């Protein structure tokens, strides 16, 4: 990834409030400790958003301590992504959500999602693995250091955002369950709770929502399971308490509120792909050269801006992920 130079360093109002997730090493089990940067650490060059940074060991210098899993206010380590584009605001990211389990109206999902009570949460990792596991969110926090990843999110509807996720590479989890040699795909399933998710009471899509990746795609270091955003736990409308984020694919691949991860030897059904296979491919890689049947994918509107931006191949992660698709005809395997 591109190094962010010191000249692009976080503006003052952001770094004064800077907080970091770090593994709860030595801290109370099930909690995430807060480490504030001391002023002395602020002038160093920012590590790229996709590198696992060494946990900052600065003492908890702040009077604002984390409550349970959350922080007092939204924070991120940088004000822009590695291309220099500013992060979207917390309220934008949490009030513009495609989450049909609650509503098809992106700006209504947040209020509908208040009916959802995710905790306690269990995520089952199963299928063609030697070491099946069932993990609570606390287990996830304890086992996997949480790190920040500033990613662009490109929706298939041709809008985009820049989001500071908190999470961990799904590769770490997959290694722990030890996939069997015949495992080739990873299937993800969203929770099914029609009592709390009113959209699941209608038949607009087939419930529960499912997605899938090839195993090598899932093992890619850019693919993460996110548990937070802007230094806070995920809000319900973002897919609390844990969701997939695959930044080089259209947003619908990044399945929310995941309860099951299953390794398979056959291609898993993916909800939108099943609903409209001519419109939504299994791969769904961001690709400005392959139009959606009903609209162009060559440009996009960044939320918070007017006018259009050119859509980037693989959403700007071409250097990192293009090798996964070598030799494939991306206009057919879209």
């Amino acid at each position, binding site marked *: 990834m591109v190094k962010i130079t010191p000249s692009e360093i976080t503006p003052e109002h952001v770094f004064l409030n800077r907080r970091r997730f770090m593994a709860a090493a030595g801290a109370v089990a099930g909690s995430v400790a807060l480490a504030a940067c001391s002023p002395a650490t602020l002038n160093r060059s920012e590590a790229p958003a996709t590198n696992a940074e060494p946990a900052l060991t600065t003492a908890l210098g702040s009077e604002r301590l984390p409550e349970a899993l959350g922080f007092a206010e939204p924070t991120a380590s940088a004000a822009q992504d590695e291309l220099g584009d500013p992060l979207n605001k917390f309220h934008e990211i949490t009030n*513009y959500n495609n989450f*049909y389990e609650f509503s*098809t109206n992106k700006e209504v999902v947040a209020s509908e999602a208040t009916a959802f009570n995710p905790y306690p949460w269990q995520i089952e990792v199963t299928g063609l693995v030697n070491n099946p596991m069932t993990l609570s969110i606390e287990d996830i926090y304890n086992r996997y250091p949480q790190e920040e990843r500033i990613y662009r999110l490109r929706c298939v509807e041709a809008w985009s955002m820049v989001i500071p996720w908190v999470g961990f590479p799904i590769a770490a989890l997959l290694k722990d369950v030890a996939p069997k040699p015949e495992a080739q795909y990873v299937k993800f399933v969203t929770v099914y709770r029609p009592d709390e998710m009113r959209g699941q009471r209608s038949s*607009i899509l087939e419930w529960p929502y499912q997605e899938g990746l090839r195993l090598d795609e899932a093992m890619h270091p850019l693919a993460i399971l996110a548990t937070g955003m802007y230094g806070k736990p995920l809000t319900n409308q973002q897919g609390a308490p844990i969701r997939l984020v695959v930044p080089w694919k259209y947003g619908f691949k990044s399945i929310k509120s995941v309860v099951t991860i299953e390794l398979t030897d056959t291609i898993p059904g993916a909800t939108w792909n099943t609903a409209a296979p001519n419109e939504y491919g299994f791969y769904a890689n961001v690709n400005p050269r392959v139009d959606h049947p009903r609209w162009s994918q060559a440009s996009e509107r960044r939320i918070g801006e*007017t006018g*259009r931006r050119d859509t980037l191949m693989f959403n700007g992660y071409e250097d990192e992920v293009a090798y996964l698709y070598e030799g494939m005809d991306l206009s057919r395997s879209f």
Partner: protein
Amino acid sequence: MSGRTQRGRQSPMIYSWREHWFWWAVTLGALTPLAWLGWRFWQGTLGVDPVNTINNETGRAALIVLFLSLACTPLTIIFGWRRVLTVRKSLGLIAFAYAALHLANFVGLDYAFDFDLILHDAVLTMPYILAGGLALLILTPLAITSTRGWIKRLGRNWKRLHQLVYAAGVLVVLHFLWQAKAAEREEPLIYAAVLALLLLVRVPPVRRWLMTQRTRLTHRKPPLGHAFEQAKPAK
């Protein structure tokens, strides 16, 4: 289209007042979405994606008001409500205004006047954009020729020209339907059904049948029984 209803000339004063009251209520009602949009724009409460909000609100308002203008004649045929014909022109013009705002938002705020991108990214690749553009292209001369002067100048051709509004209605529904996801086709399909009904009433045999039914039901209550005939434009 209703520029010649001759308010007050063939009716007593009290009826004229009622007509005016109705015209103002409907016209102001049709402008309410615009006022609401303007207020939210002013207050900065158009949501996370104002461009998209303006797009959806102006588009929906254009469609609904256009359909209300298309409902005037059917309402008169079925119920004999001659009064509704007085608002047909103002509804048509307001629908055109919403459609023009819809286009202005698309060109100005969404695409920032990048006409090259609009042509290659939108018009040539998206059938629904083409349908919407064509609908607005049709509505433009209809709006221009809605004045009394043009009605006189065009004579018989005026009516022929303005029958193009049916084509615009169909294109608008296609525009809405083609951009909708499979899971979201309900609303455009409802509009399609409404449009089908509004057009059906105009089919001459259906229209004649409905009018005889109405006359049979209401002939004991003059003078509204012949309201539609009275409301017909003077030759």
